[in-house]
């Protein structure tokens, strides 16, 4: 058992973990952070995405011990203190149906807009290529992101 201390959504957390515990399980089952979901459990689907030190990662492929002294941000952190413009656009465009992929999609899209505030459709598709959505066919997701970036352009 190892004691790890890390920043989770701007709060310091200290917790005991076994070397073989996966970050996704520790976040969900030990720390009650439920936005990352288990989909494929092998890094293909993107449902478990969280950010480590500002970069999106697959929490199903990260050992919990690895985040010792690192900074982890989940959708819960992104949504504080209020929903972002991107999240509001996803609601407006009814971008998600079942919602299982939504946290991962929002994390990938947030990361994209941080680096590239005005992506074209191809760049959006590339950035979201690791997030599988089985409900929507992606169209309302892309539309929402394009709408946010389009509005930004007008200003």
């Amino acid at each position: 058992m190892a004691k790890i201390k890390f920043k989770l959504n701007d709060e310091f957390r200290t917790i005991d973990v076994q070397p073989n515990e996966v970050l996704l399980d520790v976040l969900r089952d030990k720390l009650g952070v439920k936005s990352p979901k288990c989909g494929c459990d092998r890094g293909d689907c993107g449902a478990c995405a969280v950010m480590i030190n500002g970069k999106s990662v697959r929490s199903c492929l990260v050992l919990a011990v690895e985040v010792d002294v690192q900074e982890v941000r989940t959708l819960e952190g992104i949504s504080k203190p209020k929903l972002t413009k991107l999240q509001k656009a996803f609601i407006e465009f009814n971008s998600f149906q079942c919602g299982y992929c939504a946290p991962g999609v929002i994390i990938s899209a947030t990361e994209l807009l941080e680096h590239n505030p005005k992506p074209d459709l191809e760049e959006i598709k590339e950035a979201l290529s690791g997030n599988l959505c089985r409900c929507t066919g992606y169209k309302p997701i892309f539309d929402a992101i394009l709408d946010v970036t389009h509005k930004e352009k007008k200003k």
Partner: protein
Amino acid sequence: MAIAHEFEYFRPDNLKEVLNLLKKYGDKARILAGGTDLTVYIKEGLEHPEAVIDIKQVRELKSVEVQTDGLYIGAKATFSDILSYREIKKNYLLLWESARSVASVGIRNRATLIGNICSAVPSLDSAPALLCYNAVVHLLGQRGERAIPITDWFVAPRITAKQPDEIVLGVNIPKPSGKQTGCYLKLGRYGGEDLAQAGLGVLYSERFGFRLAYCAVGPIPKRAEKIEKLLQGKTLTDALIEKAKDLVLSEISPITDIRSGKEYRMHMCQIMLQRGLLACVDRMNGKQVDTLRILGG
């Protein structure tokens, strides 16, 4: 899903400690950098290490270093790190495009190029580039450092020239001489995240002509030397391209698997050669070519 297998976890901050752990555990130790392969292997029971050695805090290990005569890609360099260098996009386009083709952003943020060549699955996207650039792999073991040309690195699927007591420090990529360009063509089942059904790296220089390497169509990635020799010093004409395509089947030995049939791979490798050669010539003449679009999908 939790991992059933139990192991010890170490996070040394210096290479001496890494070597001591490797000496102690031998082939029961696995090195962890990005973990995008290793974690899956442990989860799915393909690997049963007693010790997992996390090297992300080892201070001597490097990320990317741009040097005047080449590049050094250290064991800490992720694919996202590689993509972030303008110098790499400008002067090592084949490497840059290969890095861009790996999985998705969330994997590239974590996965390292060195991890990719250590996993050494036949479809690894980084291999054609390293083979074309004549990269050199640098290792450190109990008996000191040694360097292995990338052509001697891949031994069999998932087996490399690395010994259990060694760690890969990085790879050196010499800067190609003269005016040069390159491209990486990756055949996938669809655009976006997928493993390669076939991959082709093309490096084209005014000085040395074409260098070509395939991945995912043989047990190990390899240079297509017969085709290189045929093209040596000649102007690329339609007739020459047809001759080169005839040689493709003598360079590759694909299998049928979940991603595609052997015959489809054989056919597509010829198409990829033609399009890759032409794309490089176009690029050399200053034309914009997005290789992601060449194969559709």
